[in-house]
């Protein structure tokens, strides 16, 4: 079902752990749908003076795909400018992993959403304006979380 690269990232996840003094934290998913992801970023500056993701960590409660996608998403995000990181899509994550089973592709959305929410949190904490696109994304992500809670129900009523 899962390819070797996915299994490698699941069994030995990179960037897993806490970051107590994080500049931004993204918390997405919920226990009802089964996946909860916390993503932490530290923001620094590159030689050109642009803000970049200097360090990134994650903690995930979730299945193999949730853990593997969070790990590789942090790896992809590291070193990127905030603009580049915000532009990352779940397709980037899936491609980097060499594919996911169709039923698991939604897990990759969670990882990218967590990253966006961490950047959102950083900008908010800094008292900086939120780009219109990111504001819209944040609204969608919050809505998705609520919907996931509403959708889970037993087979038989």
């Amino acid at each position, binding site marked *: 079902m899962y390819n070797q690269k996915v299994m490698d990232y699941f069994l030995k996840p990179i960037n897993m752990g806490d970051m107590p003094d994080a500049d931004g934290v993204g918390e997405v998913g919920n226990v009802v749908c*089964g996946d909860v992801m916390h993503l932490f970023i530290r923001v620094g500056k590159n030689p050109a003076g642009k803000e970049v993701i200097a360090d990134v960590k994650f903690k995930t409660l*979730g*299945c193999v795909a949730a853990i593997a996608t969070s790990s590789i998403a942090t790896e992809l995000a590291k070193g990127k400018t905030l603009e580049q990181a915000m532009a990352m899509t779940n397709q980037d994550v899936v491609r980097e992993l060499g594919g996911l089973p169709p*039923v698991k592709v939604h897990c990759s959305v969670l990882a990218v959403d967590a990253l966006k929410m961490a950047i959102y949190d950083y900008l908010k904490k800094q008292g900086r304006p939120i780009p219109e696109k990111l504001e819209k994304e944040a609204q969608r992500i919050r809505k998705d979380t609520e919907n996931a809670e509403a959708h889970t129900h037993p087979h038989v009523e």
Partner: protein
Amino acid sequence: MEVYLDHAATTPIHPEVLVAMQPYFTEQFGNASSLHKWGREARKAVDLAREQIADKLNIMCREVIFTSGGTEANNWAIKGVAFTREASGLKGHIITQKTEHDCVLNACKWLESRGFAVTYLDVDEFGMVNPEDLKSAIRPETFLVTIMHANNEIGTVQPLKEIGQVIKTANPAILFHTDACQSFTKEPLNLKDLNLDLITINSHKIYGPKGVGALVVKQGTKLVPLLHGGGHEFGHRSGTINVHGIMGFGKAVSLASPEKNRHMQTLRDHLIKRVLAEIPGALLNGHPTQRLVNNTNFSFPGVEGEALLLRLDAHGIAASTGSACSSNTLEASHTMMAIGRKPELAHASIRMSLGWENTLEQMDYVVEVLKDEVKQLRSMSATWRRE
């Protein structure tokens, strides 16, 4: 070390079963319906297997009707009885319960779409049906009650005796069916004592081959066939007889024994005791005592089932999970939800089902791996707080 703990999914074929089956693939390949020597040899094998199974259940040979497995037998029991109602221009009411196997639930749902009424009884936190609930669900038009003997996920054994009494006291004409796929040869099962009319059994959970099962049909029970054809199996189920499969099924039944059941129960109790004592927060799903001899099912809060399953797999241990992430529908197990487990605990469930060949050393190895992997997954979990 390799430890297979998914016997509730399927077992290997026992070497003696394989030996018993082998001649029927090659030399004794005849069609059991043929009159010549080849056919007669095949027929003899089928008769022997039927007798072995009938003996185990203390019933007549003619009451054992071979099928392609448990799913067919359950579908046939439910639809076959319902079709006898339709044939006389009636619909009516069926009673079942919420933790049945999907093949029972989906057969019932399909009948609902054809105008039948179905009641899905609730179960308690251990997965147990309350016979009193059943009593109040019975209506004048109720014609079938189907309640599984033991649950495939959590191993809870239903009080079939009380249920049978409630049914037949209310109305002796109501037929009583049980899906005994998980319990056959592991729990006492007697048609008469339990007031049963129909029992589903199968082969590949008891060291026999896949693709063969049976519906036990109490003599005189009216049932419309699902498969029409040459009138095999006393006119109940047409189709060329699966001689080697049936031969293996019979042999497997003859190998089952109280000693093997006791062995599995010892391992089960050891595993449950150690896991609950040594893994913080571990919960047992299912009934503490009214439970299949080979079933264990735990939830580990802060750990998702599929992730744990594949961590165990990396250590050579086979288990299964009720987590939504392991299913194509992405819904948590209906059994876990029916016993009132919160979604996060339903997603965290792991079933380890034991077999004859498992050992105490294997159980200890499994506990050590579990302890370590649960700890690791919790350390990366976003929701688990360190004690």
